[in-house]
């Protein structure tokens, strides 16, 4: 039994390391493109767009963790959910920083004007602001300290990507296919949760019964 849990924790470390490195690939690609003149005619646009889109992708990945567990019984993604969320925050920070630096040259008056007047900036800034408390309460100590409230607070993880999709939808000129595709993925991920809730209410069983396998690796620690 002991040997098994050591093996599980070793493989969990391995998974974490792989996911950590994978999450750095977009940053690496953007940096490489920047240094080798490979970001096209408008590198600034490529950087701002790239960091934004990866924020959204990582946010959606965090929402994929529970469906993977409930549908396929995979427990290992839970071990990397926090990391995915923090990387989403990391890319959001880069996105915000590049906007402030390259689009606004740190002209704070212009930034405030933008946030107030441009709905797509308002949505993006609100999404970022809501990510801050989630990142700040992501440590084990904060999870323990906040108890039940931690879960309540982290339900913002459903709201933030919705704001992200809206932010994207409002900024495209005419071709709304990409933002709608992200919106559809988000709708599916949130729709699943609503469906499970509805079903558990109808059958009177708590929602968690749907989890088929609980592996040792899924324990919090």
């Amino acid at each position: 039994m002991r040997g098994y849990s050591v093996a599980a924790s070793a493989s969990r470390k391995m998974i974490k390391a792989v996911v950590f490195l994978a999450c750095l690939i977009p940053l690496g690609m953007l940096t490489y493109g920047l240094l080798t003149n490979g970001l096209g005619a408008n590198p600034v646009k490529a950087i701002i767009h790239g960091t934004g889109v990866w924020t959204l992708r990582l946010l959606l990945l965090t929402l994929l963790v529970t469906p993977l567990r409930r549908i396929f019984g995979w427990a290992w993604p839970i071990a990397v959910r926090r990391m995915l969320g923090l990387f989403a925050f990391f890319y959001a920070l880069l996105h915000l920083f590049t906007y402030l630096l390259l689009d606004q040259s740190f002209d704070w008056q212009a930034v405030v004007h933008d946030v107030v007047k441009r709905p797509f900036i308002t949505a993006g800034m609100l999404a970022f602001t809501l990510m801050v408390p989630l990142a700040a309460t992501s440590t084990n100590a904060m999870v323990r300290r906040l108890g039940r409230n931690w879960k309540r607070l982290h339900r913002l993880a459903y709201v933030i990507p919705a704001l992200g999709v809206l932010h994207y939808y409002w900024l495209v000129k005419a071709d709304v296919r990409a933002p709608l595709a992200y919106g559809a993925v988000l709708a599916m991920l949130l729709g699943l949760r609503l469906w499970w809730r509805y079903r558990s209410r109808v059958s009177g069983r708590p929602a968690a019964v749907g989890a088929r396998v609980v592996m040792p690796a899924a324990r919090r620690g």
Partner: protein
Amino acid sequence: MVIPWVGFPLADLLKRFQPTSRAKYVKFVTLYDPEQMPGQRWPVLKWPYVEGLRMDEAMHPLTLLAVGLYGKVLPNQNGAPLRLVVPWKYGFKSIKSIVAIRLQEEQPMTAWHRAAPREYGFYSNVNPHVDHPRWSQARERRIGEWFKRPTQMFNGYGDQVAHLYAGMDLKKYF
């Protein structure tokens, strides 16, 4: 981006057809060929792409028909074989790969105006004081530069073209 176009004034071409006083506007149409132009396979805009100018704008010596840039023949993506260049207007007015030019009495319905009339007007003169409803038009980034710079009225061609719009409310005719 400041581009050294190779071309000739549109006026030179139009004069050959001896436009009458009924020619109030010029309508331009882009080639519709989804095989060659895969972007047209999806109805992002109502194809074919249509643009237009008022006659006096079209006859202005700064309005060019371009056949090249940087001393070379126009590449396909830049609007080969023939494209319009209207340097004091937003880029989408400079219609590419023109297959039809029509002189007419009515103001043509342009592709972007049709798609979003609140966001894109017929004139589309570069104007830092009139924002797009969703974003500011006060500053721009030139391709090749990291930071934005203030956008100039009529893209810096005010001395040459401002008289065309004397007395017009440019907030209304954006």
